[in-house]
């Protein structure tokens, strides 16, 4: 069975999106290879660097670049950064991040919706990072988003699926790929997100803070694949209590 992830008409085999921040540039290649990642995110503000330590020189050429708009505080700034990204990275893909909070780095859904609207109309493949709110997700869908990327927990927190129940609602209600972004701290959490029916998972800090980054990249690849298989296999039900050997309804006669 072919199980592909479709984003804006582009098909991907891998369901693990790799971040490229917070670790040595020399490790990016090994991380991509071990994760078998086909999409790598990078901050445009990191990519417009000059000759010294330019991250673009370290990302293998066979992956799809997914520039993000980190640094944008408003829809307008996100739109401007997206246009720069298109030019610099030669890709229609853009991950929208609009963040007006330097402490928690939580996204501003309202501004994200506005930016999505503008950029989708301009032909971008828009992948918005968002706080998992159902109404906002519907508006993003209507605005032309190619997927939605709800956070599992605050960026960099490695806390896992704190927003689990709300992401489940989005998976149930929104007919777009739901990609869990931010907060995934360990492979088991990535696996759980995939079991729930997430279309893909993105991680960065979890790898960057691992002792052996390439090995952790492989672990994530396996976890995501296992979660996806489990999703298709259909999880067995979980019961809160043991099945009573003499059922309460055993007295019924006719």
């Amino acid at each position, binding site marked *: 069975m072919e199980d592909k992830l479709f984003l804006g008409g582009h098909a991907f085999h891998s369901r693990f999106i790799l971040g490229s*921040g*917070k*670790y*040595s*540039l020399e490790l990016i290649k090994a991380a991509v290879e071990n994760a078998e990642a086909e999409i790598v995110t990078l*901050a*445009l*503000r*990191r990519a*417009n*660097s*000059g*000759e*010294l*330590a330019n991250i673009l020189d370290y990302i293998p050429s066979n992956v799809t670049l997914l520039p993000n708009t980190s*640094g*944008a*505080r408003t829809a307008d*700034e996100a739109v*401007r*950064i997206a246009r*720069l990204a298109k030019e610099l990275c030669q890709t229609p893909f853009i991950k929208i991040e609009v*963040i*007006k*909070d*330097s*402490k928690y*780095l939580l996204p501003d859904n309202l501004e994200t919706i506005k930016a999505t609207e503008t950029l989708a109309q301009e032909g971008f493949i828009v992948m918005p990072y968002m706080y998992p709110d159902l109404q906002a997700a519907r508006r993003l869908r209507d605005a032309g988003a190619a997927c939605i990327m709800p956070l599992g927990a605050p960026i*960099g*927190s*490695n806390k896992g699926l704190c927003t689990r129940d709300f992401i489940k609602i989005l998976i149930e209600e929104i007919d777009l790929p739901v990609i869990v972004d931010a907060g995934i701290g360990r492979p088991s959490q990535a696996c759980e997100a995939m079991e729930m029916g997430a279309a893909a998972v993105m991680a960065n*800090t979890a790898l*960057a*803070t691992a002792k052996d980054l390439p090995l952790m990249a492989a672990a994530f690849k396996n976890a995501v694949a296992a979660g996806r298989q489990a999703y298709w296999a259909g999880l067995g039900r979980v019961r809160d209590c043991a099945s009573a050997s003499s059922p309460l309804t055993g007295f019924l006669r006719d």
Partner: protein
Amino acid sequence: MNKKHNEQVKKQDDFFNSSIYNDEAAQFSQQQLVDHMTYQAGMEQLDAQLIQQVTEARADFDYNKYTAADVQQALAHEQRTPEDFAALLSPAALPLLEEIAHKAQQERQRYFGNSVTFFTPLYIANYCENYCIYCGFNSHNKIQRACLNTEQLRTEMESIAQTGMQEILILTGESRKKSDIKYIGAACRLARQYFKVIGVEIYPVNSDEYAYLHQCGVDYVTVFQETYNSAKYSQLHLAGPKRIFPYRFNAQERALRGGMRGVGFAALLGLDDFRKDAFATGLHAYLLQKKYPHAEIALSCPRLRPIINNDKIKPLDVHERQLLQAVCAYRLFLPFASITVSSRECARVRDNLMLICANKISAGVNTGIGGHSQAQELGDEQFTIDDNRSLAQIYADMQRLHLQPVMAEYVYV
């Protein structure tokens, strides 16, 4: 008589740093000085609530009341309160420094991974109207003064840009006569041609002037309060606009109102009780970020350094252990803040602080005027530095420590 004056001051002050006082300053202090708490004509006034909050908390900070248990509790907390920050700065935390450093390193890695951001300061003018007795630029210090013209600015910038540097911090002394806001703005516009990121560390200005500088390409403003003890501030800053404590205190807020992306804070450790000043610095940043949640926060941790005509200046009781304690406390209290360690510190201290708790380093530093491109400096330096390494050297050293140099992580919008 002057000696007597100094001795008198010393008696009333447990944190008297005799290395910075001299006869001339003592004599000057005996004149009728301008009231340092009253705004002067042309200075934009903001609400006094924040100053009150910070200075009162500083005064109430009784660091001897904290115990090892308080410190352990602060370390165990996922999010640290001002009270936790206080415990981490207390003497009770010193014996736990190793443990604290490990925790700080975890936070550093979580927020910044192994990145180290590079920048270099560019001093464009050293004329100054202030009389800050510990500073090499002060108007009473007989040094060579200069102000770079456009051609000299261009040469300096070209020379720095050639090294691969992409973030620049433009500095001046405080003289609206010799280096006015238009002059600084023009220098910033020029810098935009050579660098990705531009910050300024100049005299405090009004929010409309910060807005003007923002238009010229500046997004980051650093202002050191030096000490948050207003009485001590008054003894150290004897004349000039810098004497006005509240105007300086509110500079970061005016910068944010002027549209700047980020603001930097610092107390110059060694001027007064460093525990109280570090506490006030962190609290100032914390409260301002709460008020302006989008503001990017940066902290520096400068210790006093020798200057021309006074090579004896020392940072009092702030030894390396205390410095590490303060910087770790900053990291644990404000894990998202950028922390810079300047070339006032030696390579060994800077490199280790980068590994543990700081994330931003200057390289190829010269604190004089014209020192990057001229055969001889046109103007003397602000203080003597303790780390002369070039960008290439620090770059290689960071890589050896498995840290990833980042030349720019920014886009001007």
